[in-house]
């Protein structure tokens, strides 16, 4: 089992993904005075889960634009500012708040370049946070990347690791296209050594975070962490599997996935959105049509079931895919016998102890 390639020195400061995003935004804004921030509570004490903390102190408060509660108007305003040469970073506390601005995002941000025959650019970053946990419920914890990823002209990224997030957020700010950044609240807690100063990570798609021959798991965002945990258990049991962190949902770079599946001959996807019409469906169908005859098993997609996200801990039981389910599904696909699978599942559950379902597992404090 190999660890993810580390570009930050191992003795770099260990920080969590929330702080890494803040540092990445600050460095990008320091390098380019056209970067301006829009947000609801952009400089309030919570500073959007700390991801914008003290940025105004370093770059000037006039570049921190407090948003009235008017998402469609304000995101449209940010798009207009981007057309005129600014690099706005709009930060929303929840994915759902972006839904009020879908008209602006899907019609104007995504299309301004196209319908100007290439004359306009919209170098806009739209950050939105998946608020899973603590009973956030149907309208505060959705993961809607499939909606944005459906639309040509947008880029959609979902970093899962601190170092990656720092470098990718800088790349998102520097990109000449509108980039939707979907951050999972639980990924904000993951930690890793992250190089200080400016860091750039190209938005170029999947990254292998675990190596193995038994199966390819393509995971997104926080589900990558659950998949890694499952992969570590499977490896301990002698069945190493490959885990790819998708990172960039659109443009979708399938080559590393196809290359991996051609080797492992099995594909599982696990993402943070609804299973139906989701990211997994897209990947499974593309991979199937590209290497149908190399597959030893039908691809399997894990995702959310076909109902809104309930709030109650009782109701979310079994709602989210987790490491135990990922491990079981993988083991079944590889043809392991049921006693071994059950034992592994028990171990994963035991590791989690009596932790409530609506808080992140401290396991994910890394470093990864």
């Amino acid at each position, binding site marked *: 089992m190999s660890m993810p390639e580390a570009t930050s020195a191992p003795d770099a400061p260990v920080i969590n993904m929330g702080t890494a995003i803040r540092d990445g935004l600050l460095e990008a804004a320091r390098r380019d005075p056209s970067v301006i921030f829009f947000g609801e509570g952009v400089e309030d004490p919570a500073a959007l889960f700390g991801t914008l903390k003290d940025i105004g102190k370093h770059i000037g408060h006039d570049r921190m634009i407090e948003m009235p509660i*008017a998402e469609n*108007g304000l995101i449209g305003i940010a798009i*207009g500012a981007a057309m*005129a040469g600014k690099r706005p970073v709009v930060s929303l506390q929840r994915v759902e708040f972006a839904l009020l601005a879908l008209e602006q995002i899907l*019609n104007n941000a995504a299309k301004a370049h*196209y*319908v*100007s*025959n290439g004359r306009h650019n919209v170098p806009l970053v739209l950050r939105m946070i998946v608020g899973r946990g603590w009973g956030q419920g149907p309208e505060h914890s959705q993961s809607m990347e499939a909606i944005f990823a459906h639309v040509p002209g947008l880029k959609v990224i979902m970093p899962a690791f601190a170092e990656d997030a720092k470098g990718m957020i800088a790349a998102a700010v520097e990109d000449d296209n509108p980039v939707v950044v979907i951050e999972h609240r639980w990924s904000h807690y993951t930690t890793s050594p992250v190089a200080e100063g400016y860091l750039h990570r190209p938005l170029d798609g999947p990254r292998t975070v675990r190596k193995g021959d038994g199966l390819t798991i393509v995971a997104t965002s926080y589900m990558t962490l659950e998949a890694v945990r499952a992969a570590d258990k499977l490896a301990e049991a002698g069945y190493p599997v490959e885990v790819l962190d998708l990172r960039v949902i659109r443009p979708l770079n399938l080559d590393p996935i196809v290359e991996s599946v051609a080797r492992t001959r099995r594909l599982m996807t696990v993402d943070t959105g609804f299973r139906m019409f989701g990211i997994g469906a897209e990947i499974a169908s593309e991979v199937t049509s590209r290497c149908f005859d190399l597959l030893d098993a039908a691809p399997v997609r894990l995702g959310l079931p076909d109902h809104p996200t309930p709030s109650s801990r009782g109701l979310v039981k079994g709602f989210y895919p987790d490491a135990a389910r990922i491990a079981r599904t993988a083991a079944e696909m590889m043809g392991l016998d049921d006693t071994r699978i059950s034992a592994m599942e028990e171990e994963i559950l035991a590791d989690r102890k009596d932790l409530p379902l609506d808080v992140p597992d401290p396991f994910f404090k890394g470093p990864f």
Partner: protein
Amino acid sequence: MADAGNDYRLRCLKQMLRIRLVEETIAERYAEQEMRCPVHLSIGQEASAVGVCDALLSDDRLFSSHRSHAHYLAKGGNLKAMMAEIYGKRDGCIGGRGGSMHLMDPDVGMMASIPIVASSIPLATGTALSDKFDKNGKVTISFLGDACLEEGVFHESANFAKLRGLPIVYVCENNLYSVYTKLADRQPDRPLTDIPAAHGIAHRHVDGNDLEAVREAALWAVETARSGNPTFLQLDTYRWREHCGPNYDNHIGYRTEEEFQTWRLQDPLERYRKALEESGTLGPASFADLEKNTQAEVNDAFAFAITSPLPEPTEALAHVYA
């Protein structure tokens, strides 16, 4: 014109006439089925586009809506590129991607036309925000129809523009209808200017078919906006043809023939021509000359559009990403 103070008068008359002739020619040739996109004509509304744009500098910015021909031309857009766009040709101002409802040319400050009601209002507010940052003295014009005042995004934008002191003029062309629905069926009986007033935005309400009145109000609005005070103009006017398409539609029952005729007498082009003739600024013969020369230019543009090649299907893939 000898008198420099009168220069703008002939310029504006010619511009209104040009827009009129372009749109009349579109209406005439539309049945040929070569312009295969919806067209929203502003015949009868020319004074607002021309009066407002004449108050602008060439690098001031303008955003428009589905009814964008007059705005595009008045802002200095290229007539040939506009016609090629309407014909869906490669030489169109955006290569045939958009058609009549997506006219733009940033080189002359024509930023975009967007056919979703009110959708371009925040974009305009955003360029004004950017220009304020850059202290470049530019003003943005946001042309909007009366229906736009019903969309939340107008209020969101107006609130923000006032809050931040943005150099923007919201120009409401009130033609009384949203497709077939009367203003009275869509909004309560109150002055439209109460809405910007509620946001603390300075405003004027003038006859939108009176070129001089529009231009004067626009000069005030633009100068006020340049100093960081957003403004709002209500210009009352009327569209003669159907909402979308080349025909008259008074017979279908949503508006009366009498109402149409009342407005018909307020023809902004005819009114201005008469006024200039009566004041001796323009002789009758010179209007005929103007008409002849302008129609020739219009015919050239149509010929250009018709002979321009269609874009190749592969071109549709370009410019998805910058």
